[in-house]
């Protein structure tokens, strides 16, 4: 049937063809989603657990409900959002410390990282979960030599050497480095409230 352009039949034909294609595609996507959903969720969960375990080893974690005032902290005039906080306990239920996940903005997007803080209020370890910083520059924030500089800090005034602190920055521009130190400071501030 050669429907005339502009006629109702022609418009209906266009709509039905497009609808048909969309329905088939949607069905296919639903199928792939059903197959991969569990694996993706499992991977995300494993990554998170691995990051928590690195920040505070041998603890079992309980997520903490945060008050509105604890949703983000202003550090050096920059807002550091808190994504989640966990209290870590040992086998007999004693508080070992807490792990705080922050999502501060670096050079190229959010740097999702966790800071593990011991019960005495000092940094145990930090770990980068994901970031899109420049490969070879900001991406080096996940290297041991950089992260270990912040271990042991207990008051929220961690700074790079350029700002009069003790942390050797990754690059001269210090954008990623400052992002990490601010995240650590925000985590330390929150930890003081959580651990009392």
């Amino acid at each position, binding site marked *: 049937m050669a429907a005339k352009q502009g006629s109702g039949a022609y418009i209906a034909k266009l709509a039905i*063809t497009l609808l048909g*294609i969309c329905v088939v595609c949607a069905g296919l*996507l639903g199928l792939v989603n059903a197959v991969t959903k569990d694996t993706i969720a499992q*991977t995300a969960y494993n990554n998170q657990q691995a990051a928590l375990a690195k920040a505070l080893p041998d603890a079992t974690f309980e997520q903490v409900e945060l008050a509105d005032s604890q949703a983000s902290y202003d550090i050096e005039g920059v807002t550091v959002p808190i994504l989640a906080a966990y209290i870590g306990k040992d086998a007999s239920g004693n508080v070992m410390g807490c792990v705080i996940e922050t999502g501060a903005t670096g050079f190229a997007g959010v740097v999702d990282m966790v800071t593990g803080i011991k019960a005495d209020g000092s940094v145990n370890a930090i770990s980068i979960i994901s970031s899109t910083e*420049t490969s070879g520059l900001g991406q080096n924030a996940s290297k041991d030599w950089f992260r270990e500089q912040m271990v042991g800090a207990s008051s929220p005034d961690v700074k790079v050497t350029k700002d009069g602190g003790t942390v050797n920055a990754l690059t001269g521009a210090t954008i990623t480095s400052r992002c990490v130190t601010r995240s650590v400071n925000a985590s330390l501030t929150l930890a003081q409230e959580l651990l009392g």
Partner: protein
Amino acid sequence: MNIGKQFKEGLLLQNPVTVQLLGLCSVLAISTTLFNGIGMGLSVLVILTCSNIVISLLRKIIPSKIRIAAFIVVIASFVTIVDLLLKAYLPALSESLGVFIPLIVVNCIILGRAEAFAYKNGVLASAIDGVAQGLGYTVVLIILCVFRELFGNGTFGGGLLNGGDGIRIIPEGYPILDLILPVGGFLTCAFLIALSQWLVARMNAKKKEEVAE
């Protein structure tokens, strides 16, 4: 049908990156490690081939008035499928390519080949076109990746070899960091385009000489 000619066009004469200048955004953004280059190149190759095949199959059913909308739906579906599969089975690659996999939906290579080739040609020719153009994209991407990684970061095979750090060839502190940054991508890509144009020009000159003799 001329398979050899299609591959020659995809790899050099009508290379999607160096001649058609399509999909440059992702090329410049992700060509920093070998792992990225291979992963992105193969993803585009698979999506391009699949979408070419489907669009060529549907070309008699899709009225030309709604063809762009139909193309986008087909392409977006394949991209989402690849994105989900990568997330599930190759999470490291998915993380490293980030937003550029979903962005293949609007990558002009795929839509360009759908419009320029698959909508007008048979299934087999379209499938070969997808592979040839995809390979052309992958090869350029890998050349850029190897060059930028070696001189910008001093390593080879980052993300793949040596536990993900790559094999260090140039000692730390000596590589030209600018090459890893966007400006290095533009420069490297421009030189590669110049090189491929020179090659094509030389081939044409030789052909003319042969004819003259």
